[in-house]
């Protein structure tokens, strides 16, 4: 060979480099590989390591636990409200306090429970379901959790200090403006929104990139689990809808802080502008909560009916079209505001149209049950409860899409009944089902079946007792958000029933929590795949190791674990001495790149503290925007500071 000596030297050097490189494969597998991966992926020890972690499973667990705590807190406020409304003309709770309670209840449930819990479940399970080792942008993921936590602490800290917002979760201007809400209550609400917006946007970006780029090789878009489809649609919806409320709440804050008068009609602002911006976000928000739950239902129906969901393309198209239609409905929250009457008809038609994809999805689940062999275990019971309950909420939704009907029913207890049927029946029931279903994957133990069944029946019956009579209270003329109602209007009986039902629901939630806590220590040890399910999260141990999969699995069908007897096919060659994941192409999921995963870092946490100080201080002074930006910028620069490469760039192995 006539190669110049430097080329030969270079080849030798590369050969040595290659030997140093550790990758999984035939030479490195089994226990030795697992120990090596464990060493690479485990988080730093101690409290600092706990704060610095970027493991999606830890962040997902924290998200879920925090969101469930907020659910309990928001539910407790609901009980207080029901106690006040149990009797007419009751003086148990003052008007001011009651207004704080419903504001806290709505804001907590929408911003601190429903959206974050869906994101939390997704952040935990999506990488496992897709067969990868980490989410995309794991540090952003950690930052998203801390922003959410601080937003929640801001709101509940204010409640503890007796400066809770009292403007409703919708904060209509001008009631929430500087003239009619002096003090800091409304600002605290608006800044809580800013925190949760940023958190949700960050989580959405993480999820979109994770779903599009980190799927296991072979998991084409057409083989992707329906839950991943649902979360992809939801994350895109978050990215398009949250800026509207970010804009609206920033304008509200600047109205309150520096007198900009955006919403002040006496100074040529517009009181209705808020409603347009808020509902442009607020209506998609409902689907942001509901679509992940449809993903849960698809997962449960598939596993417990022992066959894939019927008409997969129809379900996917239903998800996507719901996601698009959801942006064309916001005016149906504003039928009583006196906008042009004929224009309303468009929104009636759009609101009814959105019932079509939902009806098709329901048909597909029922067809799956019909064609399969349903096993009535606890998660499946929740799906049956979901269908019985949610369909009522969907149909009352068709009723209130009609302008003449909505003008009577708008802002009455009929609406309260409607959206609790949709949100509890449509989202919380599937959530409780899916938590039961994924509990063994997350904790390594099974939840008690008996307690689970008792819990299901109490919450199902308690729910109907609480919310069915509210349809009637609304028709009998009871408006929403009233702290009391007079005797003699026929409202006594339905309200008393609702209060009794609320306590039944609460006892069932307590039962669920007890079941969750006791099973953590006493539950039967869960095997890798206790339900005989088909998606990839069940291909690894319960709970999964910190690196998720020793080898990245390869997918050849929509139901991988049902179609392959024995070991899954895998790809090898990912580095084990550094954190690394395999990126695949967006549509066909063919291997594309090997991508390094950032190490654990305290900077997301420090940045979130700096941003939290910035936001909270800006409640009190506009100067906080100037001075608060400095530490936030420093923290972000430190977070993004280019890292020194420890080794030379690795050679291309052909």
């Amino acid at each position: 060979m006539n190669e110049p000596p430097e080329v030969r030297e270079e080849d030798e050097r590369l050969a040595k480099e290659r030997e140093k490189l550790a990758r999984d494969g035939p030479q490195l597998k089994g226990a030795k590989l697992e120990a090596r991966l464990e060493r690479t992926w485990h988080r730093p020890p101690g409290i600092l390591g706990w704060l610095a972690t970027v493991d999606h499973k830890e962040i997902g667990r924290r998200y879920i636990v925090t969101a469930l705590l907020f659910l309990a807190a928001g539910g407790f406020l609901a009980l207080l409200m029901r106690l006040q409304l149990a009797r007419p003309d009751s003086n148990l709770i003052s008007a001011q306090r009651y207004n704080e309670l419903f504001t806290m209840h709505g804001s907590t449930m929408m911003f601190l429970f429903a959206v974050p819990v869906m994101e939390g479940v997704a952040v935990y399970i999506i990488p496992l379901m897709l067969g990868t080792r980490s989410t995309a942008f794991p540090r952003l993921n950690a930052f998203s959790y801390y922003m959410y936590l601080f937003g929640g602490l801001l709101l509940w800290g204010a409640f503890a200090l007796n400066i809770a917002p009292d403007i409703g979760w919708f904060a209509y201007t001008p009631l929430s403006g500087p003239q009619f809400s002096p003090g800091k209550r409304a600002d605290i609400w608006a800044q809580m929104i800013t925190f949760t917006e940023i958190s949700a946007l960050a989580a959405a970006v993480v999820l979109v990139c994770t779903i599009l780029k980190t799927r296991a090789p072979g998991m084409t878009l057409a083989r992707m689990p329906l839950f991943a489809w649902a979360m992809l649609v939801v994350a895109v919806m978050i990215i398009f809808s949250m800026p509207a409320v970010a804009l609206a709440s920033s304008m509200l804050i600047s109205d309150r802080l520096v007198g900009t008068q955006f919403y002040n009609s006496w100074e040529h602002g517009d009181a209705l502008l808020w409603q347009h911006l808020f509902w442009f976000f607020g209506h998609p928000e409902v689907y942001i909560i509901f679509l992940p739950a449809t993903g849960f239902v698809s997962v449960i129906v598939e596993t417990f009916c022992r066959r894939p969901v019927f008409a997969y393309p129809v379900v996917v198209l239903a998800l996507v079209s719901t996601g698009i239609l959801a942006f064309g409905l916001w005016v149906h929250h504003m039928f009583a505001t006196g906008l042009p009457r004929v224009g309303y008809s468009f929104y009636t038609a759009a609101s009814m149209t959105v019932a079509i994809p939902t009806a098709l999805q329901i048909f597909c689940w029922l067809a799956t049950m019909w064609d399969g062999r349903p096993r009535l275990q606890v998660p499946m019971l929740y799906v049956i409860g979901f269908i019985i309950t949610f369909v009522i909420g969907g149909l009352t939704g068709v009723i209130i899409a009609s302008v003449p009907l909505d003008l009577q029913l708008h802002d009455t207890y009929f609406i309260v009944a409607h959206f609790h049927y949709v949100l509890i029946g449509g989202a919380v029931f599937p959530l409780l089902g899916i938590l039961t279903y994924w509990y063994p994957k997350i904790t390594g133990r099974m939840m008690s079946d008996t307690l689970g069944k008792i819990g299901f029946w109490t919450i199902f019956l308690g729910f109907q007792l609480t919310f069915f009579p509210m349809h009637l209270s609304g028709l009998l003329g009871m408006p929403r958000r009233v702290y009391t109602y007079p005797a003699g209007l026929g409202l006594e009986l339905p309200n008393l029933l609702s209060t009794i039902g609320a306590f039944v629901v609460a006892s069932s939630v307590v039962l669920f929590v007890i079941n969750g806590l006791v099973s953590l220590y006493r539950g039967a040890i869960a095997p890798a795949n206790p339900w005989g399910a088909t998606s990839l999260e069940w291909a690894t141990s319960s709970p999964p190791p910190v690196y998720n999969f020793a080898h990245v699995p390869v997918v050849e069908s929509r139901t991988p674990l049902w179609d392959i007897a024995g070991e899954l096919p895998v790809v090898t060659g990912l580095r084990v001495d550094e954190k690394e994941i395999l990126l695949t192409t967006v549509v066909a999921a063919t291997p594309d790149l090997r991508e390094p995963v950032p190490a654990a870092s305290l900077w997301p946490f420090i940045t979130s503290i700096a941003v939290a100080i910035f936001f909270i201080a800006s409640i009190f002074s506009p100067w906080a925007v100037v001075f608060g930006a400095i530490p936030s910028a420093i923290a972000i620069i430190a977070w993004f500071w280019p890292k020194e490469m420890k080794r030379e760039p690795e050679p291309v192995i052909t």
Partner: protein
Amino acid sequence: MSRRTRAAAVALLFTGACSIQHYQSTFSDAAVEVRQFNILFVIFLVICAIMYLAVIAFLVAGLVRRRRRLANVMEDGRHHESDPLLRTALIGWGVVVGTGLVGLAIASFIADRSMANAAASEKLSITLTANQWWWDVRYNSADSSKTLRTANELHLPVGVPVRIILNSNDVIHSFWVPSLAGKQDLIPGRQNDISITPTKIGIYRGQCAEYCGAQHAHMALVVNVDSYADFLKWWRHQLQPAPPPATPLALAGYNFVTGRNCSACHAIAGTPASGTVGPDLTHLASRRTIAAGTMPMGKGNLYGWVADPQSLKPGSKMPTIALEPDELHAVVAYLETLK
């Protein structure tokens, strides 16, 4: 469940609902508008109930069938197959749902148009201005001597289409008298209106339906639908100024009310009291309620309200004014003469 349980519960609730007074209920036939609502509501309810039963029937059928031997499940290795019948059924279901929704949308549109057309023929015009937390009422007339101002109470002649112009002085409120018509918001900086044609004599209660702050729950409105003759009698009476005080006690009250704090906010026709930020008091004692439906009109409640409005309606814009006992007796005695 227990559909039976639920059906029983519904039956119980509805029989309960029938035995009560319907003066704030949508189950009413007291106006053209609410009748249209009820017809449309029943159409929607029936179609939605049929849809619901279809879903539940399919669910039950699916669950009952689960013990059959042949199923397209993974245990039998047939999980990628589907019953061919289901494909047809899916298309059929889509067509049924789509047709049903189109039908409902058309029914809704027709009802909406007919309500809008009825609005064109109004005979009586009223301007209603919402305030935290009471209603300012003005009866408009081309003849300014017949324009009158009152508060928290509407009187409407039966069978006469009325147009109510809706404004707000502060935050967003919503006008809603369920037994007569649907709601319409009162928005600062905008003017809305609503048309009502009452068809049945009676007393109806309405209340603010948009959350408007601390006392949102205590912002009610009484609507008296009278015969045309009674309505005209009421109107003529309301156009009278307040009678001069007849007793020494009432005179002391008159002096207090017109000379001190009260007149800064309240107006009483025929006296120097001419404030406009609070409700007009000219015929206060002829109204059915005090403080926008917070309590019934009566001597005891008047005492309570004048002495300490902040305990009875906390947050109300009427301040508690420290009154000596004799001043309180005098003020109430005078207010009682404002029939």
